């Protein structure tokens, strides 16, 4: 039994040396998303009257989205130049995701789709630097032209298309998919 005792003691010693529990689990790390988009802002400026600006913002996109300031109130039969801005406010200071998207413009595409009853036309005005058959639009800036008075949602989707961008929405995956309510008067 002497040898057995010795070997048990040895094993227990080895086991406790390597298995000393430090209770790491009691220090809980906060939830951290590499790529949260919390905030999306659409800013429209009338091309005929630069003093006429309209802005709408959706907050808390990564949890329960807040649409209380998300409605765009536009004038009928007007052309606006539009820019979109995305923020990650889970970080301090808030991270400007738009700037990072501009840097990787060759693999991103914003797709704006007005609801069927909404008299709104969207044309993307910026272009990436993809080689032929590119370049393709990006959609960080656009012109939006309203028609007769109407209302409905403007669906905004950001497509991530690494190595596959071809000017259409099909390739890749969605990084953002949300809706701005639009009222044209």
């Amino acid at each position, binding site marked *: 039994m002497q040898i057995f005792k010795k070997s048990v003691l040895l094993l227990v010693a080895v086991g406790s040396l390597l298995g000393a*529990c430090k209770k790491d689990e009691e220090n809980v790390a906060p939830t951290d998303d590499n790529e949260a988009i919390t905030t999306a802002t659409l800013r429209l400026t009338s091309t005929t009257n630069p003093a006429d600006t309209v802005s709408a913002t959706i907050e808390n996109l990564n949890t329960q989205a807040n649409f209380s300031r998300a409605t765009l109130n536009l004038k009928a039969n007007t052309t606006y130049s539009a820019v979109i801005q995305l923020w990650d406010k889970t970080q301090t200071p808030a991270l400007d995701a738009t700037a990072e998207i501009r840097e990787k413009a060759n693999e991103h595409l914003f797709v704006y789709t007005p609801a069927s009853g909404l008299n709104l036309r969207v044309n993307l005005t910026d272009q990436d630097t993809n080689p032929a058959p590119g370049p393709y639009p990006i959609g960080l800036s656009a012109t939006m032209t309203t028609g007769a008075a109407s209302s409905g949602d403007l669906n905004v989707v950001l497509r991530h298309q690494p190595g596959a961008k071809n000017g259409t929405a099909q390739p890749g995956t969605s990084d953002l998919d949300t809706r701005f309510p639009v009222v044209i008067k």
Partner: protein
Amino acid sequence: MTDSLGRYHLTELCAGVYTVEYRYIGYNSTVLRVRIPNEAVRSVILTTNDINLATVEVTEHRSEAQQLLQTQTELSGAALDQTRGQSLGESLKAVTGMYSVQTGPSISKPVIHGLYSNRILILNNGVRQEDQQWGNEHAPEIDQFVASRLTVIKGAASIRYGSDAIGGVILVEPRAMPTRPGIGGEVNLVGATNGRMGVASGILEGAFSKKLTGLSWRVQGTLKRSGYVKTPHYYLENTSYRERNFSADLHYDHRNWGAEVFFSRFDTRIGLFTGAQVGSLSDLYAAISRPEPLSQPGFSYALNRPYQQVSHDLLKGRAYLRSDRWGTLTLTVARQQNNREEYDYVAFSGSLNPELYLKLVTQTADLVWEHRTRTNRKGGAFSGSMGFNGLTQGNVRRYLFLIPNYRNYAGGLFAIERYTHNRWTVEGGIRYDYRWLRAYFLNEATNKTYFTTHHWRNANGSLGASYELRDNLTLTANLSTAWRASNVADLYSNGLHQSAVAYERGNPALRPEQAYNGNLALAYTGKRFSAELGIYNNLINNYIYLKPDSVPVIRQRGAFPSYTYNQVRATFRGIDATLTYNLTERLSLTSKTSLLYAYDHTNGGFLVYIPPNRTDNSLRYTWNRLGGLSNVYASVSGLYVARQKRAPAVTRREENGVVIFTGDFAPPPPAYLLLGAEAGFSCRVAGQPLSVIVTGSNLANVAYRDYLNRFRYYADDLGRNISLKLKMPLNRAE
């Protein structure tokens, strides 16, 4: 040679059928066919010139697992060699009744009788493998080359091995340590055309002599690399993977005691098919509706996001003491550390961090006493064991939340006793378990940590009997209960499971699963025909599964189907049949068929992800010698997998502009038939034996999808693959 009492022992026999001839001068010799493992005690009476009757007792020494009456199947020797190069989960599919849940070509989780994940216990080198096995895309982190024998115990087998094993147990056992002084080893090389995979695995081992007799060592390592795999018509982008594994073992065996230290590291990086990466439900439906993936690049070994980086370290110490009077006492302590990092696509941030990081550290201690086999006056023999299993583990997460940090304690006591008399063996076992779980959370508003605690206790039992109807026909019946405490993922999941396109919510009110399992097995070994037929019924109360909710969750990337963990009463029943018929001395036909029926009694419907029925039939021709080659064989096979007709109906509707679905994302794929062929031989190269196997799978290059492959929504399964396996044992005696 028998001793003076006519007794003798045959130890360390490989499984199979042996012809034993009993001879004694002046007596008529008797020839018996003995099937191992299945015989316990065999009394042979030799007839003489009417003088006397001598009794010969054949007692073979079998591993403890093999003595259990549970239905079990083993993969070793040549059968295991044929699967070299595959992952553990894939290679186990060679066993009737086994299937696998796959996430592409490199992630394969074993399924026993329709049950998987935490419902299967894997004993890696005698230690309960603890990784993040709750995840469908988390395969067991074990190097298949470590094993020289894989044993699958089918059905609830938790009495001996611990709670949770309501589906079964997989034993991964390395080969026996060398005893002859000198240095030896083995080299395995595998190459495959599909994925242009290459594997190199080597073993170097030795034993000492003289003063160090009893001391032996082994080092083992495996390198594996594969690029994009190819379906019949296109490559799957980013399905590359690589593995780097290493293990070392040091043994000391004295006459009646011994000790061992074992270390192993498994390290893998697995690329996930980019075509299966979807941002949201609308991406998923777009991907499903495409007949082929949009992006179809050429071959590459590139491995980019999304991928998993996983390592698993195991350090084990074991000591045993054996005495003729008391039996064997074995103590095993082990520490495991599983590090899992999952990297998703990053769209714009260029972040190098993973999205998910989980570190699980587990300590286990097992003390088992196997008492000496006692024989009573009637010639019956008692054998059995009792013991304690203890476990503690701590889990730490970072980045996104999917499961919380937790601490887990588990303790179990068991006893199993077996009685063998003539043609009968009966076995009974009891077990008591206690489990404690504390999960830690952070209130991000107040930055304070809080926790919730669960504890469970449960007693289970098993009863089995085996009867030899004839020398070559054995009937075994087994009834057992088992339980599984709801794990931390069942209870507290809360997060977007990007790779599964699902928002999963745990349910802290879940109760433990309780299984009632019955097995009936008939084994026949004849001269030309042998068969194993198994029937099982597993009733599980509080069976936990992910139930789709009717309202999807909306996040920045769009809509996600949401699921909550739910409980039902479920039945899994089925038949496993393995038949072998020797048409001629050289030509044999083997048929393996698994039928499974699963039902959800609570909702009166079918369960999702249940393996379809399948049958694998092969014809094999062998030559003893062919030119300078030995062990020559060639075989052809056909694997037929039926369509899973018993699956929840797939429905989808639109509500407020979002798609709501029930059942599944897509109906089960059609049935398929895969043709395979194999040839192998042994020869001598530079004085060392070399064995060569060439295997072709999906030879007709059929485009098919498998119901249990999670990538079936997006792409076809693997096309034709030809692999070459070389094995060379090395021996140099001192």
